[in-house]
């Protein structure tokens, strides 16, 4: 066996086993009770709109985007390009529609902020948290999009046998994006907890 044969065998073996050290995290679900608290909160006017939009956002994340991301994480080890491509398309569609909802959340909290202009205390605090929530959600979705693009690169490389894509640089970038994505989702969930706490404060006063 010459060196050439050894190299050929090795490259084939790498492809067939798919041994690239990619680190993926499971999407984090919302803490229990957040949705029900948001649903049970009775308010009218701009605040009611803002809370309803925030609840729609939470439900979209919990029931539409997170399940797809969890399934992607679980099927990452399986060599089945068809399934992965389908999940990828689903995740992209859900991410895009969640971006539109997050934009609505942002504008509804902005409306609430202008409607309480001058008022301080709990109301201003709630508006501030709501705006921060929408910003964090938008940055989480941007991160998700980048992660999905890199994932598509790996699926494509597997289909087209493009060994040059499996470089350490791409691997580092993927792992870096994935860690940042996990941190961004933790930030979003903690912001939701803060929002619920702020709303309960508002109800008490």
């Amino acid at each position, binding site marked *: 066996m010459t060196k050439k044969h050894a190299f050929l*065998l090795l490259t084939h073996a790498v492809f067939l086993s798919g041994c690239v050290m990619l680190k993926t995290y499971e999407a984090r679900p919302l803490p229990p009770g957040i949705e029900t608290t948001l649903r049970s909160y009775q308010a009218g006017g701009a605040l009611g709109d803002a809370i309803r939009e925030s609840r729609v956002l939470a439900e979209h994340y919990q029931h539409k985007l997170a399940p797809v991301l969890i399934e992607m994480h679980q099927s990452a080890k399986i060599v089945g390009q068809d399934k992965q491509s389908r999940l990828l398309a689903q995740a992209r569609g859900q991410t895009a529609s969640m971006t539109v909802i997050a934009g609505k959340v942002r504008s509804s909290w902005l409306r609430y902020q202008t409607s309480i202009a001058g008022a301080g205390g709990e109301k201003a605090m709630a508006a501030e948290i709501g705006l921060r929530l929408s910003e964090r959600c938008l940055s989480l979705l*941007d991160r998700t999009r*980048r992660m999905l693009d890199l994932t598509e690169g790996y699926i494509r490389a597997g289909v087209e046998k493009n060994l040059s894509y499996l470089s350490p640089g791409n691997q580092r970038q993927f792992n870096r994006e994935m860690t940042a994505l996990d941190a961004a989702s933790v930030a979003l969930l903690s912001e939701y907890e803060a929002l619920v706490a702020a709303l309960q404060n508002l109800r008490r006063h």
Partner: protein
Amino acid sequence: MRAFLFRPLAIILSVLSAGCAGTYRPVDYDMPSIPSDSPYAVISGVQVTAKDGVSNQEMNDFDVALRRALEHRGIRVDLFSDAPLLNVQLHRLHAESPAWYAAKYALGISIPGSSSNAITVQMETWRHGRLLKRFDEFDDYREKTPSWDAMKTSVSNRIADALFYAR
């Protein structure tokens, strides 16, 4: 003895990997329209420039693909508005020669890690002659695929997505 063992193994592995070789076809998905309060819901134009290695025909092809991707996401191009201008610079690193492509196609196999099209992109938005934002995610981005058609679609989709999600 070794050759006796390794040759069949190499043949089997080659057949296995050639059997599932092909061109990646992305699944289509629905894209909602960009919210109107998004900073790039309207842009005042698309400028595609090339550094080197890109022919005029390829630049035009890319321009068309990019406009189609923007349209798919509901991003409007209004020449007479005060909106930002999108500037995309292409830098072709390597183009596959037609002869090599024909040879590969005739053999019906895909050779791992073989030559293909490679590209780097620089994406910026400008307003009134001033740089607004430089999308640094494209800095260390290298797209490499066997077909130029597939590549221009996926790169223009990525650029349009960057605008869609930008804040």
